[in-house]
């Protein structure tokens, strides 16, 4: 599924530390580095949106409806990427949108990791009926088309950014539960866990200080790829009118607003989608790079 990391000829005679080693593999993958740079840049933009954006995201100016971008006839550098149907600066909305989209992506993944690890650990350690119930439930979630399930959840809870996030968490949850459970089952059969158990470690201690750190790698990879899924799904919900509600400058919601102007103003449609694509792409590149660098099987 991914470009395997190009192996770097090792010239160093002293063994490298794990971090240096990781960076060696990671930086050999140009796509992954590009993804990382974009992610850092967009995070910077999101944090300092107030200072970078030329206008507040909701400021309307009724003298400049649907103004084209600066380089087109009729555009001006006052609004570099043009304005939307009610005279809001598109660049500023995109900048504030970065904040919203990243927040959604990170929050969804954080929630999914916490709940997923908890359920996965319990399924892996307790086994029995509890495990069967959890894993069956996860199978059902995986069986249903993800967006459909998210839509159903939002239909129950009502549209809005918070409910959309909950819906996406539920949809992506099975991956985290499965990864954790699988890792727990492999790890608990190893000698060091038996040793820890024999020396009287409690189950909680086994779960969190012995087993969990050892299944961190697949979870980190899944988390990085998960941010992109979360951003994409939340934007899709926003586009369907079920996610963030107008006038929020969430990219998907902006696209939904712009749909009716597709025939006359290409810029209101083009830029928000481009931002979604670039951000999702960056996180996918980053995730692929992390997987290649962290997966010992590919390193040989």
């Amino acid at each position, binding site marked *: 599924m991914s470009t395997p990391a190009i192996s770097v000829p090792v010239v160093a005679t002293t063994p490298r530390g794990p971090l240096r080693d990781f960076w060696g593999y990671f930086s050999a993958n140009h796509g992954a580095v590009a993804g990382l740079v974009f992610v850092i840049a967009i995070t910077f933009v999101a944090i300092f949106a107030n200072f970078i954006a030329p206008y507040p995201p909701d400021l309307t100016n009724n003298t400049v409806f649907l103004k084209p971008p600066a380089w087109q006839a009729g555009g001006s550098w006052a609004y570099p990427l043009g304005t939307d149907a009610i005279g809001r600066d598109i660049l500023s909305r995109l900048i504030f949108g970065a904040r919203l989209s990243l927040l959604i992506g990170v929050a969804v993944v954080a929630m999914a990791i916490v709940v997923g690890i908890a359920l996965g650990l319990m399924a892996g350690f307790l086994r029995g009926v509890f495990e069967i119930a959890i894993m069956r439930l996860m199978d059902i979630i995986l069986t*249903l*088309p993800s967006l*459909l399930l998210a839509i159903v959840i939002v239909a129950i809870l009502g549209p809005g950014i918070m409910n959309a996030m909950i819906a996406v968490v539920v949809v992506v949850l099975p991956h985290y539960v499965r990864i954790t459970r699988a890792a727990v089952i492999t790890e608990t059969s190893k000698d060091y866990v038996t040793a820890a158990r024999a020396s009287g470690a409690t189950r909680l201690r086994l779960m969190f200080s012995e087993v969990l750190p050892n299944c961190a790698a697949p979870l980190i990879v899944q988390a990085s790829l998960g941010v*992109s899924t979360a951003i994409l799904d939340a934007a899709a919900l926003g586009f*369907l009118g079920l996610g963030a509600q107008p006038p929020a400058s969430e990219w998907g919601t902006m696209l939904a607003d712009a749909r009716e102007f597709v025939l006359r103003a290409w810029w209101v449609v083009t830029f928000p989608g481009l931002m979604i694509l670039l951000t999702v792409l960056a996180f996918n590149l980053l995730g692929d790079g992390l997987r290649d660098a962290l997966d010992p099987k590919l390193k040989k």
Partner: protein
Amino acid sequence: MLRFLFTRLSLVIPTFIGMTLLAFFLIRLVPGDPIETMAGERGIDPVRHAALLKEYGLDRPVLVQYGIYIGRVLHGDLGKSMITQTPVLHEFFALFPATIELALCAIIFALVLGIPAGIIAAVRRNSIFDHGVMGVSLTGYSMPIFWWGLLLILLFSVQLGWTPVSGRIDVKYFIEPVTGFLTIDALLSGEKGAFRSAVSHLILPTIVLGTQPLAIIARMTRSAMLEVLGEDYIRTARAKGLSTLRVVALHALRNALIPVITVIGLQVGVLFTGAILTETIFSWPGVGKWMIEAINRRDYPVLQGGVLLLGLVVMTVNLLVDVTYGIINPRIRKSAA
């Protein structure tokens, strides 16, 4: 084989029960009871409210209600749409062919482009073509398809005027549904230009819906092919002096396709997810658009029935894929049983 089939089938039942539970509780989790929901913002007279509760059996214990619901579902009764008053099952089957037609075209599009692209990328590993295919497929995989659809409309419908913006066929044609696949029905009808119109309406939605599966299939074909090309029997075949074409097409492809087939099967879920968005963008009258409309109109029986039916379709296809895989690959069969 029989044991494998039974093991696999026994997994279906709890999943089915789970889906019915989800569909059943869907309506009950909505704030307020279903009758109030149906009445909407106008509110409802308490007497009529009680009468309706009784009529729909909502005054009985939840477990009994669930039992009744399961009984009905097994008899093919999924309730009626609150807006049109037609049975949900009937509406579903009227619209489903449109979704299937679109999904089939999309998967064919993805296969026809994705498999050759993946093979060539693997054979010419690290060439410009390989990097190009991987770059494009990662972009396709990251693509917000609702935006992709709008972009294509912007370019091909608005700028170039090549393709229509929405619908399945030009309004001037009325085609009697025979197969439900409009392209085939248009051909059968013999009406001049109808087939052309149906096909031109299909092009953009097909591309939009096929993009993600295309990306996934190309990547999967490439990595499966790379794995197979490293095997000893390929080296043997080459050493025998067989042409590259023969080695790739006859020896490698057959084995490389096994994981690809699984991936194709798994695309059904992706396709339905994509169909919801694609149909919304292109006003394609299929089940995806139908369900989005149901949400907007708060038509819960449609939502409930639609979720269950789509879930069943995905489940059935997954089952078929697993069984096919078991037939192709005996190792899977053994480890699962």
